[in-house]
């Protein structure tokens, strides 16, 4: 209850700040519209107003404050506008029986989710395989680890279109291409966490295995892998969020297939800020659900394994 209240307080503060910010952000447009409608605005000409700062314009025209929340293409849409858009493009579409039409965020969310999950599965698998080989081979540790770290310094925005072009030339399905881009981001936390996790058994535990003359694979399956679970889950949480970012970035290059990334792109082409914000919030909500789901799996698994009580 206490944590719920504190979350509520933070959310309320953010929304309050958001509403407050709408006034200076949208004041120029509001002045323009008011003037067109024949109302009095100071200063009177548009060039004069443009030269003025937002705050000054806002202070001079308090009568406009109420009108900044109902524009078609505001520079900063108000929370309730974004909320209405979200409602219209999700449940509203369901009510019309067009839940998966092109205008529905459910469709685009689903497209993004499938790319995210595919990339997350690829990334987790690749991450674990790399971590296992790094832990078991000094050569891998010395040669591959620096490249893995270097890979994450390349901006994904730059490399994503190239991956799309190369994979398209190889006639790879678009969904797989998106999965690959998403994997590029999500394997990294898994590698780092798993390497740490697989190395987490202490000297005594490793000595104990030696006294039993355990083979490397026995040590791996019976000691290293179970010991790494807390580390794996921590990495998966980061990895799934990274996966989603990868999927959204991939959709900027493959926007013909839809997805939340495509909605962001289309929104910015046509100045549809409300659409951009609702796609952003939808992506954030999707990430929150994914991270939460992994958190649940983590709690159950670690409890069963006796890591937490």
């Amino acid at each position, binding site marked *: 209850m206490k944590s719920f209240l504190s979350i509520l307080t933070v959310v309320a503060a953010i929304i309050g700040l958001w509403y407050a910010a709408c006034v200076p952000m949208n004041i120029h447009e509001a002045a323009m519209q008011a003037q067109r409608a024949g109302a009095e605005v100071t200063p009177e000409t548009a060039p004069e107003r443009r030269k003025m700062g937002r705050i000054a314009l806002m202070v001079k025209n308090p009568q406009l404050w109420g009108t900044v929340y109902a524009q078609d293409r505001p520079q900063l849409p108000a929370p309730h506008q974004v909320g209405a858009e979200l409602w219209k493009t999700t449940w509203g579409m369901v009510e019309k029986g067009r839940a998966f039409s092109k205008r529905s965020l459910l469709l685009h969310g689903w497209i993004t989710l499938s790319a995210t999950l595919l990339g997350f599965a690829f990334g987790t698998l690749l991450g674990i395989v790399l971590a296992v080989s790094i832990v078991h081979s000094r050569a891998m540790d010395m040669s591959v680890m620096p490249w893995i770290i270097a890979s994450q310094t390349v901006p994904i925005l730059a490399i994503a279109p190239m991956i799309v072009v190369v994979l398209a030339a190889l006639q790879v399905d678009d969904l797989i291409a998106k999965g690959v881009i998403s994997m590029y981001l999500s394997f990294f936390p898994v590698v780092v966490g798993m390497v740490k996790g697989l190395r987490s058994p202490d000297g*005594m*535990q490793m000595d*104990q295995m*030696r006294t039993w*003359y355990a083979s490397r694979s026995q040590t791996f399956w*019976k000691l290293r892998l179970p010991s790494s679970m807390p580390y794996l889950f921590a990495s998966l949480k980061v990895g799934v969020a990274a996966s989603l970012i990868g999927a959204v970035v991939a959709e900027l290059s493959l926007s013909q297939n839809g997805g939340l990334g495509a909605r962001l792109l289309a929104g910015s082409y046509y100045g549809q800020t409300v659409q951009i914000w609702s796609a952003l919030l939808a992506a954030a909500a999707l990430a929150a659900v994914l991270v939460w789901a992994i958190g649940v799996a983590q709690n159950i698994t670690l409890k*069963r394994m*006796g890591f937490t009580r």
Partner: protein
Amino acid sequence: MSDPVISAKNLDLTFQTNDGPVHALKDVSLAINKGDFVSFIGPSGCGKTTFLRVVAALEEPTGGTVTVNGMSPEEARKARAYGYVFQAAGLYPWRTIRGNIQLPLEIMGFPKSEWQSHIDKVLDLVDLRGFGKKFPWQLSGGMQQRASIARALAFDADILLMDEPFGALDEIVRDHLNEQLLELWDKTHKTIGFVTHSIPEAVYLSTKIVVMSPRPGRITDVIENTLPRERPLDIRDTPEFQAIAHRVRDGLRAGHAYDD
């Protein structure tokens, strides 16, 4: 008399560190016979743990020879000649007590049909009947350490090497476990090597007490314990016990003499 189970001759072990070489063991010779309970006592850095680790083939000596059951330590390890108990119980939290005891059986490839009887037997030996289905965190520290002893006994090695197994436990639990360990030793006729830095523990448990001293790690005295094998806890108040404890203390002091 038959050949000793563990025999060390002129054992040397020097670790190369950044601060120069450290003589962990210097010219250590010792014979441990079948059924002996040998305690190693001395201040930290005297090489008592290192000696046990050499016997277990966890460290490689830089000089001298050591045999275990007539084999090299490495071969003895492959032949699963010994069980090793560490200072921490080191039970796997994701396995039950039975599952933990089963671990070495799985690793050593014991047939599945035998697991049950092996586990039951050692659970009885350490008095943990009825706790097999519990998880480690449900047990006290002393019980966890008993479970780890059961695990070391599970595969029926003749030698039990114990590295300060009760070091992290409080006095009362320790007394109780010492009593139980003697009982267990009496029932199983194992050969036990036991590292400790408690004088009463060493005198109470052993047939032979090896007093060691540091820099370089070496043996300063080997004391044959003349106490009867039947040892109730209050034997520690008898003059015989006190006399042996006194000799151990003298040995420890002698080792320190030129130190400071």
